[in-house]
């Protein structure tokens, strides 16, 4: 493990150095929220934000990408993405979501080559949370405002400087590579980091997820699913913004005389997601679709991967137009 501090004023130098051989993505204020965006040395980084509007899954599993083109001799795969990408500022909850997505996309038998290539090319510098939102609940599941799982380097904002700690060998190598821009942290800075992390942790909302989850399997046929989702519009924004939702579809389409295969994000919130050509649909009601989404996150993935596929980022709560709160849904249905 390596420790280092970088002055916020020197971040531009780091960006410039990284950009010579790869890309640097950092937090940029877009007016209606902060987004993880490619930056160059002169750009202003936003360092005061709760979280990005969009989860980082799109950097590894884009909304839509052309997988291959069809020719007379078969299919030609789209070349894999190349080049190092440094992603700075992802919050620990979102970084944890990548650990979960790895379990889906990097299984032994059928690893997804595009996801793998982007993961292999990435250096992730996560940024610990200072001020959780009321919708945040990472500590109720498995996260922490300064959680390290999934990050190569964890950065903690302690005023004028960021304190960096390497988590993986990739992170340690990165810090060695750019060691000239880093200083050794003082004892005061290290203790200030502890205090900052503890303060953020103390502000986090707590819900008893474990108790509710334990009861969820037995509540498959509960009438509450339909009652709770009576106001759900089925817009799917919860799945779009969820850092762990990973449903997709493969589509063959013809564009400009060219046949191509596209992989695009999809969502279990939509009725056509499971609609079969015969007309049969195993999930006809919104309540059944909501049940599926909840069961998948809190039961099925726990059984198949040993992890609850929710990191407590709260995006689904913040953005639901019908004011649905996943924490309430979970506790209500488990009553």
């Amino acid at each position, binding site marked *: 493990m390596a420790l280092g501090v970088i002055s916020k004023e020197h971040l531009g130098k780091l960006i410039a150095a990284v950009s010579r051989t790869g890309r640097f993505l950092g937090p940029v204020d877009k007016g209606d929220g902060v987004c993880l965006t490619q930056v160059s040395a002169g750009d202003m980084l936003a360092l005061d934000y709760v979280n990005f509007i969009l989860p980082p899954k799109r950097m590894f599993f884009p909304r839509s990408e052309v997988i*291959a083109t069809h020719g007379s001799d078969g*299919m030609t795969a789209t070349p894999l993405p190349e080049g190092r990408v440094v992603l700075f500022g992802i919050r620990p909850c979102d970084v944890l979501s990548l650990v979960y997505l790895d379990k889906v996309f990097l299984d032994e038998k059928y690893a997804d080559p595009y996801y793998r290539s982007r993961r292999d090319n990435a250096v992730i510098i996560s940024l610990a949370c200072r001020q959780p939102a009321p919708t945040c609940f990472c500590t109720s599941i498995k996260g922490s405002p300064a959680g390290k799982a999934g990050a190569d380097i964890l950065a903690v904002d302690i005023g004028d400087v960021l304190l960096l700690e390497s988590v993986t060998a990739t992170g340690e190598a990165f810090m060695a590579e750019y060691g000239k821009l880093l200083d050794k942290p003082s004892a005061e800075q290290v203790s200030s980091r502890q205090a900052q992390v503890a303060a953020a942790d103390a502000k986090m909302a707590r819900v008893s997820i474990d108790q509710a989850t334990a009861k969820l399997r037995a509540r498959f046929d509960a009438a509450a699913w339909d009652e709770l989702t009576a106001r759900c519009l089925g817009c799917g924004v919860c799945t779009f913004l969820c850092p762990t939702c990973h*449903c997709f579809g*493969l589509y063959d389409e013809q564009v400009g005389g060219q046949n191509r295969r596209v992989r695009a994000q*999809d969502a*279990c919130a939509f009725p056509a997601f499971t609609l079969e050509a015969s007309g049969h649909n195993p999930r006809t009601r919104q309540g059944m679709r909501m049940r599926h989404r909840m069961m998948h996150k809190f039961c099925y993935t726990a059984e198949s991967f040993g992890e609850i596929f929710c990191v407590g980022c709260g995006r689904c709560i913040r953005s639901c137009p019908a004011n649905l709160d996943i924490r309430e849904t979970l506790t209500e249905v488990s009553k």
Partner: protein
Amino acid sequence: MSMCASANPYLAKPVTIEKITVENAARDLKTFRLAFCSRADREAFKFDCGQFAMLSVGGAGESPIGIASSPLDADYVEFTVKRYSTGVVSTALHAMEEGERLGLRGPYGNSYPLAAMEGRNVVIVSGGFAFTTLRSTIRYMLDGRNRSRFGSITTIYGARSPGELLYKDELKAWQDVDGIDMHVTVDKGEAGWTGREGFVPTVLGEVKPSSANAVALVCGPPIMLKFTIKPLLDTGFVPETIFTSLERRMSCGIGKCGRCDIGGKYVCRDGPVFSFKQIQELTGGQF
């Protein structure tokens, strides 16, 4: 870094349509006999009875279809496809002609429990066009290289009308084969039909195949499955010895896209074959 095509699980292999057989009077069921364009692809395609593959028509899309030929049919792979007017891929497939090219990837999913079936009697119950992967299984078991591995085979197979029965030539040929007891039935006969009339579950109740040292493979529409389970349980089959193949809409076929989930199991990866015991655990016994 370059990657060889075989490592990309989303790419289909080119195949040529060698032969198209219209199976039924309604002409919405066709069997496509496909041959791989590349020898390496053909040799790499090894499957067991009950598995499926994704068939694709360039520009139209992909559909999961059960493999209807036997693993011992070395030179070709067959799929029987039902055309739905709402089905983009099945409609495009049915418009194709012999000699044209399709894409194929797979095989995917698990298979019927062939190892557990060895040395046991096999009862096959099927209705409609769900018979396809069971036809693969019958062809496989009746092959001279395999026949001694399995006990007696009892088949109860039904369709709405005589014209809707699949694989008519084989059904006729199997009547004369030792070691397989064929009971072919139609919901309603017509002029010239001298065979049995009656729904599959009713015929099953009449034939009453013994459950002693037996395994039952059951495929059909959900309503048939529902009424078939009871007579099987009544004759002494236990949920662990009854197997069926489930269908769900699929996209990736490899347990990632989230579409074919049933109670935490993916039909594409953990199925499509499930024991009735598993179905009871997953859905409370609903199909």
